[in-house]
């Protein structure tokens, strides 16, 4: 086992990454970690043939979708089930064989000489778990460390992790009917590039930025799928205190799962609560139209042990971030989509009847709590609808600066930085936020500037697309580059979706991003030097000082 894909990975003087213990910090055991590496390897093999087939005009929807789903299962805090990965590896091999046949048939028909692929494209997975574990060494992320060095391994890893995030967002779009051939082509080409085990730092850096561009297309497609299915986000109050009655809690990011559950519990008397990254659901008109989408419960993912144990109903986990279910709620937590935990019941095909059965059997909330709300729904449509007001505010000096304070939350103590940034931001500044990082400050009262709320909740982490659109629109209005806007980005990262978003921001040429709470372990000092030189990327310092510098530079 070697894994350093998330922010909480083990850091030590002997080297960063989880690997010496039998279990990672996230709770993923060594067996599962090794099998995930093999699945990624097998998926690269699919991509190698899919890329060649695509050049000959041949595509395969099943293989495209499998690549998204398969990579999504390997994100941090998604799937921990070793048997699941054994079966996914065999599935991947079957897809690869089908893509090989598709390519070779097309090549012969079109008179091309067959390509002589190597590596993942020719890999034969063992049929037993024990034998697969022996094969895992050949698929480890750091297997070439001695020959290519840590910088190349890190650049390959950053690209792979970015692609995992891209695949996860693309999967969210896919389940809502959002697809684009350019996305599949881009992901597959990038994976095929990685399958070639590249060792040129310049080429890898360029390929990383290309992943950022692919992710922009993915986030655009997901934005279109979300708004197409559920309407554009609108500012709305989301209740954050309980209501008497039976209850189901929905966590993760998958709005399709939430919608289906809302349909299946219509008129049942069961209230549906969002959790974590589901909070923005309250801003979508077609989801909000369900009266039993009653409110939001709890906070960000890392607090789920205490929060899920205290919730008086079942819990549905639709995507990351799942951590080991505690005995107190293990029998009433369900997974869906790419998520899985050994011994936890998995829901297929949106049939939530077992979840509903548990909700009916459990006591639910016995009484109403005092009503408390937070305001959500400041996506690009809402913000840009008052663009004139915002621009006037900037021009008059009423709005001095914008801070984008968002991304993932996590358990690391250093994440208080983001609370301090939000709290210490001067009253003539606007804070835009997204992702679950907002839970560190979103219940606070920030007031407004001439009717514009000082805290604008843009949505989920994938609504970074909205933030980019807003920044672009402001840059157009002021006839300047985004980097010249009075805008600072304080991005908190935890897992691979955030890596994809970071690569998108870099691909757009955005400079001066503060990235924290700690820099990724896979960004080596030499790679960091490049990122600092080309993108002026910054590590977190002291919140007060970083704020002062940001405001000073903008002045």
């Amino acid at each position: 086992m070697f894994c350093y894909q998330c922010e909480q990975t083990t850091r030590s003087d002997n080297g960063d990454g989880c690997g010496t213990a039998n279990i990672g910090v996230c709770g993923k055991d060594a067996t599962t970690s090794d099998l995930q590496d093999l699945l990624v390897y097998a998926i690269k093999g699919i991509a190698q043939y899919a890329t060649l087939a695509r050049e000959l005009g041949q595509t395969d929807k099943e293989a495209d979708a499998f690549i998204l789903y398969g990579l999504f299962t390997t994100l941090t805090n998604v799937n921990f089930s070793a048997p699941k990965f054994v079966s996914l590896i065999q599935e991947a091999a079957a897809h690869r064989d089908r893509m090989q046949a598709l390519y070779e048939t097309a090549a012969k028909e079109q008179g091309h000489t067959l390509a002589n692929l190597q590596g993942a494209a020719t890999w034969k997975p063992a049929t037993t778990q024990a034998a697969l574990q022996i094969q895992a060494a050949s698929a480890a992320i750091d297997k070439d460390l001695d020959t290519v060095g840590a910088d190349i391994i890190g650049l390959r890893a950053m690209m792979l992790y970015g692609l995992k995030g891209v695949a996860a967002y693309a999967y969210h779009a896919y389940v809502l009917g959002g697809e684009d051939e350019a996305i599949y082509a881009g992901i597959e080409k990038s994976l095929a590039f990685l399958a070639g085990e590249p060792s040129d730092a310049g080429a890898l850096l360029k390929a990383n930025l290309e992943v950022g561009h692919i992710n922009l297309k993915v986030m655009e497609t997901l934005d279109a799928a979300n708004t197409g299915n559920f309407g554009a986000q609108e500012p709305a109050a989301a209740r954050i205190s309980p209501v008497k009655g039976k209850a189901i809690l929905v966590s993760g990011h998958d709005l399709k799962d939430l919608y289906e559950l809302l349909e299946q519990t219509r008129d049942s008397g069961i209230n549906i609560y969002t959790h974590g990254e589901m909070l923005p659901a309250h801003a979508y008109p077609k989801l909000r139209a369900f009266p039993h989408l009653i409110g939001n419960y709890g906070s960000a993912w890392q607090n789920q042990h205490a929060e899920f144990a205290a919730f008086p109903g079942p819990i549905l986990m639709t995507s990351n971030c799942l951590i080991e279910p505690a005995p107190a709620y293990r029998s009433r937590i369900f997974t869906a989509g790419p998520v899985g935990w050994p011994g936890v019941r998995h829901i297929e095909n949106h049939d939530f009847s077992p979840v509903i059965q548990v909700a009916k059997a459990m006591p639910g909330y016995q009484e109403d709590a005092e009503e408390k709300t937070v305001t959500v729904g400041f996506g690009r449509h809402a913000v840009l609808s008052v663009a004139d007001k915002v621009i006037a505010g900037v021009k008059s000096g009423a709005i001095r600066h914008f801070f984008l304070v968002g991304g993932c939350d996590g358990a690391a103590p250093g994440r208080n930085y983001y609370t301090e940034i939000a709290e210490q931001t001067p009253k003539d500044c606007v804070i835009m936020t997204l992702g679950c990082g907002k839970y560190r400050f979103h219940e606070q009262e920030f007031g407004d500037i001439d009717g514009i709320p000082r805290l604008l909740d843009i949505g989920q982490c994938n609504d970074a697309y909205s933030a980019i659109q807003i920044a672009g629109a402001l840059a157009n209005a002021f006839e300047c580059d985004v980097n010249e806007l009075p805008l600072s980005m304080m991005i908190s990262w935890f897992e691979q979706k955030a890596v994809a978003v970071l690569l998108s921001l870099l691909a757009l040429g955005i400079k001066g991003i503060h990235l924290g709470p700690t820099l990724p372990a896979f960004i080596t000092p030499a790679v960091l030097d490049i990122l600092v030189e080309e993108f002026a990327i910054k590590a977190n310092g002291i919140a007060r000082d970083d704020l002062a510098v940001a405001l000073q530079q903008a002045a």
Partner: protein
Amino acid sequence: MSYKITLSTRDKQQFEFTCTAEQTVQEAAEAASLYPPFSCKSGICGACLATCKTGKYSLASYSDEVLSAEAVAQGDILLCRTIPKTDLHISVPYTADNIPQHIHKPRTAQIIALDNIAERTVKLVLQLEADSELGLAFDFEPGQFVELEVPGTKLMRAYSLANTPNWDGRLEFLIRLQEQGQFSAFLQQAVIGQSLLVHAPSGAFVLNKQSANPRCFIAGGTGLSPFLAMLQRAAEWGEDHPTQLFLGVNTEAEIMCQAELAALQQSLSHLAVQICVWKPVTDWSGFIGTPVDALRNYLQQHNSTQDIYLCGPPRLVAGASEIALDAGIDKARIYSERFVAS
């Protein structure tokens, strides 16, 4: 005088607590709010079987059916009979989630069905009363057992659950009626509606959920119970793991649950069932012999990648373990539960 006890689990977690020279390790664990699987607490059932890796200890009296002299020589112990003489490092054959840190109080249930399903075998169905905290829910892991107690008496026996965890409060058991058994005598005169106390579930005879290996289940008589629970859950969850089940009985009259097994095969396309009749009295056309014989044949024809699960009388468990070990199956992949007649 007290000593440090370290329990290491299969998933490499560790639990530490102190134990005096007058306590058993099981008693000390419970005093520290740790509840490793247990049942009889008198050295008979084998539920608390473990292996001492380092340290000195004495063993109070125990049944040699669950702890042979050879096993003792290799360091095998029963936590309920082990009294430390030094610090001990003990390896337990289950994962950390099989050691709960609190234990629910016994709950009351009514008998709602008690049917003869085979010779000297009954199916007991209980309906729990609602609990203020848990409602009708009764959480357990398929493969675990509970102790049933006749209220107002000291009569208590452990039985494996034969159905899956549910939210309706329904508990099912397959029970072999023992000629001299006190609980068997109780059941033979029990009536519908009669109350029993159901103690918290225990036991580590549960599926290794992180293994993708094919499974081989060997059941002796009502040793079928935990396998019914495991297979029902697999069917409910759509987990069609390659599984071979051998059910051993003495005669055709003891064959049980054929309809349930057929229904499970409808749901689980990779489930194969073979009933093994040891001493047929009719023109039985199926396998003649014990499930140990059947396992021997099976392993001769298949590779050694199976995980082996054994449940039944001690002799069956010992015999099947030996066959599996001889076939090259690692000891760590042989999981067993012994039924002790009482």
